[in-house]
């Protein structure tokens, strides 16, 4: 079967600093992939490249066999226009570490703004869909609240609803719970677990080892902008082949 996401030899440098040094990954439709690795290993940058918030220095990304952020004209790769790029991004959801909710909009408007302004839905339709998504993350009763009045866990759940309402083919989650107080992590993980059970395609960067072991089909360990090893979760977590993976896991567990 063809992969939903194909990353081919992705490189990214900031000036002279090489952050991604040739990453290639295939992700199947419905697959749950977890990415782990030490801070600064390039995990966030990798996710950001997938929806072109960051322009790769080299390499290509395909979703459903379609190039992301570029097109081929006369055999040459050229960057997409803002409009074309926006269309592609609408199909890839991104959950940020720091939520990035829009502080000037209520929870409901945070979720309905993209259906309205991107998909062009009528206000009523957009709000109906948005409310259904808030319901799904258990926050329908907070629809009228502004983000500052919500806890971190609630904010992140609104952010997830905001992604879901666009019915993305692929969801990217960048340490979705690492900015949360410990007692708020559970409610967000619960929502993510439900998404996983619905068979959505997800790539998550996470430090929640037991959670990653439970829901992912595959785990990738990254270090220094490279994939050090990958495999089924029980193999990576219980029986890693590489010393670097072992050291990293020991550090995380000790914390």
């Amino acid at each position: 079967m063809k992969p939903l996401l194909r990353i081919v030899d992705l490189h990214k440098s900031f000036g002279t600093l090489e952050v991604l040094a040739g990453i290639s990954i295939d992700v199947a439709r419905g697959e749950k992939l977890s990415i782990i690795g030490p801070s600064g290993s390039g995990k966030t940058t990798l996710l950001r490249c997938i929806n072109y918030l960051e322009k790769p220095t080299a390499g290509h990304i395909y979703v459903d066999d379609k190039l992301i952020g570029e097109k081929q004209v006369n055999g040459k790769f050229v960057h997409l226009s803002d409009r074309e790029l926006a269309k592609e991004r609408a199909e890839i959801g991104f959950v940020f570490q720091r939520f990035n909710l829009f502080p000037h909009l209520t929870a409901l408007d945070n979720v309905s703004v993209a259906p309205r302004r991107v998909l062009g839905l009528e206000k009523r339709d957009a709000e109906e869909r948005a409310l259904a998504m808030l319901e799904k993350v258990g926050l329908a009763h907070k629809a009228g609240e502004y983000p500052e009045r919500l806890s971190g866990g609630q904010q992140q759940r609104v952010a997830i609803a905001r992604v879901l309402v666009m019915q993305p083919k692929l969801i990217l989650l960048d340490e979705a719970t690492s900015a949360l107080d410990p007692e708020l992590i559970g409610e967000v993980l619960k929502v993510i677990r439900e998404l996983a059970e619905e068979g959505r395609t997800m790539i998550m960067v996470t430090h929640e080892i037991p959670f990653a072991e439970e829901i992912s089909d595959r785990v990738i360990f990254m270090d220094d902008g490279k994939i050090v090893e990958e495999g089924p979760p029980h193999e990576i977590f219980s029986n890693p082949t590489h010393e670097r993976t072992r050291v990293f896991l020991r550090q995380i567990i000790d914390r």
Partner: protein
Amino acid sequence: MPEFWIKMWEWWPEIFPVLLRATAMTVQVMIGALIVALILGMAVALMRISTFKLLRYPALFYTDVMRGTPALVQIFIIYFGLSDLGIEFDPVSAAIIGLGMNGAAYVGEIYRAGIEAIHRGQVEAALSLGMTPVRAMRYIILPQALRLMLPPLCNYAILLVKDTAIISTIAAPEIMFEARRLVQATFMYSISGQIYLICAGFYLALTLPLSQVAKRLEKAKERWR
């Protein structure tokens, strides 16, 4: 001293209507210039934050020139300089265009600072949802930036009210121009001090409400952040 004020009282009917009319003109020039500055300033700001050097540099140049030369000189160039080239403006239009173009540099900086103060994560969230940069600006960035911009814009409006005084030099019939005309009408020479004091009062009547609004907005902004 008291007899001055007695004279003042006698001439009041001659002075007051003139200065009131002049104040109306000042307000008109100020609002006209403000509108020009607000619109042109947006263009300047959007160019300055653009990633294209071809847009960024001209806007930077414009800002530097407008802020680095006296508004009086700019207005003279528009009023006298352009008329030499056959482009004629009446004093009021020249004043509105001159003060507006000058203000666009300041307002542009206010806009730019407001836009840049919005966290990058906001644009990124908007983009990741499939908004184009233009939509992200319109629906996500500007509404937030506006709240940051309003207090400094209000302060700019206060400066603008005071700056209208310089256009008396091109005979735009605003407060200072009319005041000087009154004084120069020989019979009022002796009370010039009082007339200028009254002028100050008229300016204050315009600027004090604006500073009140500015203070309120500043407080509202802090509450919201």
